[in-house]
């Protein structure tokens, strides 16, 4: 069991002031470098002495990476923009209320003041076996301690378990997928812009990572297209403690109506798999249907198809079903915007 120490192991600290400098450092030190944005996930790892990077690249001085700006019809959010800045930005509140809701649901005000949107989507899993420093699959070993007959796995995956059953804990990730956001990833080899849903990867692809970010690459910005701006949004997060906790399950939906029928919809849930899941089957099924209880029920049932509970997380199946129902129908008649 890891013990939090007062003193972190020594590392060399770099505080670049430009993206190019940061990338040069990451390219130079590759897997020996640790990228730090807000530092909230980072300091857990470093103080637990589980991750022992030779070099820490602190992005806090890179002004290019910070701020919300208009980009074409949409918005571009720098990766180190704090969650508080995202939540309070007028354009986010006006056009992308779901992101505001999701960012505001993350952690506590103090943490949102320091935590960044890039860090929130790129943070590591909270699986406590993994974070205790044991050599599980995700840590390069050959076992998942959370997927054994005696494991405590109440918070773990009901979908996509591939040796590892950890889940992605991000609140903003499903909202970004629902908004069809684009993630801008840079490395010394150039810039790559990808759909938000492709930014996250499961254990089948790489069991040691939760995103496409590899040593030497950096998430620099998140672009929100106008496609879903002003749509009818729904975000809900269920957690053990309302004041400050990671999601057990969260859901985000963006729906455009044509009359009383659903013209198009995008939904994503998180906390149920190693990556946030876009619910394409549900999106297809509800298209053209009226927003009513029957459509919501159909969506809920479709959403949980294929779910495989572990010993202690069977509750996530009805929880997810009901959250998806509400994401279509609206919870108690309320919508995010």
């Amino acid at each position, binding site marked *: 069991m890891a013990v939090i120490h007062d003193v972190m192991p020594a590392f060399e600290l770099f505080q670049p002031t430009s993206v190019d400098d940061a990338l040069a450092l990451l390219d130079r030190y590759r897997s020996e470098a640790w990228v730090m944005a807000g530092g909230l996930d980072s300091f857990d790892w470093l103080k637990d002495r589980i991750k022992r990077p030779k070099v820490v690249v602190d992005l806090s001085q890179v002004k290019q990476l910070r701020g919300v700006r208009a980009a074409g019809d949409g918005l571009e959010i720098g990766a180190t923009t704090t969650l508080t800045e995202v939540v309070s930005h007028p354009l986010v509140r006006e056009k992308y209320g779901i992101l505001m809701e999701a960012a505001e649901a993350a952690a506590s005000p103090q943490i949102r003041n320091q935590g960044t949107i890039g860090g929130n989507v790129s943070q590591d899993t909270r699986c406590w076996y993994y974070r205790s420093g044991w*050599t599980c699959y995700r840590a390069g070993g*050959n076992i*998942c301690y959370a997927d054994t007959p005696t494991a405590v796995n109440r918070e773990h995956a009901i979908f996509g378990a591939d040796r590892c059953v950890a889940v992605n804990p991000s609140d903003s990730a499903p909202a970004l997928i629902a908004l069809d956001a684009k993630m801008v990833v840079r490395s010394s080899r150039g810039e790559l812009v990808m759909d938000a849903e492709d930014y996250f990867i499961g254990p089948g692809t790489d069991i040691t990572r939760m995103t496409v970010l590899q040593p030497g690459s950096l998430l620099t910005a998140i672009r929100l297209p106008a496609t879903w701006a002003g749509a009818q949004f729904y975000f809900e997060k269920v957690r053990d403690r309302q004041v400050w906790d990671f999601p057990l399950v969260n859901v985000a939906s963006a729906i455009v109506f044509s009359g009383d029928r659903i013209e198009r919809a995008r939904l994503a849930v998180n906390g149920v798999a190693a990556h946030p899941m876009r619910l394409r089957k549900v999106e297809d099924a509800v298209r053209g249907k009226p927003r009513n209880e029957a459509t919501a029920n159909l969506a809920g049932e479709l959403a949980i198809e294929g779910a495989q509970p572990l010993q202690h997380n069977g509750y996530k199946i009805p929880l997810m079903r009901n959250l998806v129902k509400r994401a279509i129908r609206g919870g108690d008649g309320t919508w995010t915007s």
Partner: protein
Amino acid sequence: MDFLTWGRNPWQQQILTHVSWNLLWASLFAGIVFLVAHASYMVLSAHRKRTAAETDAMEAARTDLPDRIPRHSLAARMFHWVMAASMFTLLFTAFLPVVGIQFAWVTWHWMAGLVLTAAILFHIVHATFWMDFWSIWVGPSDIPEFKAEILRELGHEVAGPKPGKYPLGNRLYHLAIVFAGLTAVGTGVFMMSRVRTPFFTRDPYLFSDITWGFTYVMHGLAGVSLVGLVIAHVYFAVRPDKWWITKSMLLGWVTRRQYLQYHDPHRWVVGSKPGERARRA
């Protein structure tokens, strides 16, 4: 260079986890070095082969033989190509992610592993009851052939035995594949109890951490060994002077001339009718 990777279990015991992927590069390097060394040697060597006149004379004396000598039955060929396809799938799914090509590989890997396991079980039964079981194995009785082959490689004319149905190199390769393949398959079947499949109830605590570590290391060692072995095999399969053997694995037969040129008819006895079983003299 590390050969093994270690971790700590919840009881703070140091446990083996995997082989180091450095060994993959070592195996690739070894395979390629062998390929280059052998190709260079074959260009420069004074390998003694039967002359065309010798073979003509032998062919004239053995007109009782059919034009086509059966070498591999349909079942044996099917086993070989199924094994090859599954082996390539296993190696690609195992090692492409290691070299940076990421994809969801585990399901493909264990499915190919099951195909290979089934193929091997079939082969064991088939070879035991329907093939000349001992013709592929190597033993002390092959020492004279080994000596004769070495001398021929050095350009000497020797009266020692020529190969029976399978050349000595072929048999040694088979031996290596048996060890590496059975190790990979044997450990792989148990490792399936750690992933979700329709066949087993997951039981990651089937073995102790130490035994699991040893299992993973053996699987890894077999896997990286197979990389080098497969490189060597493919190299020989595509060499022009060995193409007749590859062709026989496709078509099932060799010509009478190839039979007489490359084999010892006393050690691989062929009857006058196609399909008659070869027997080791």
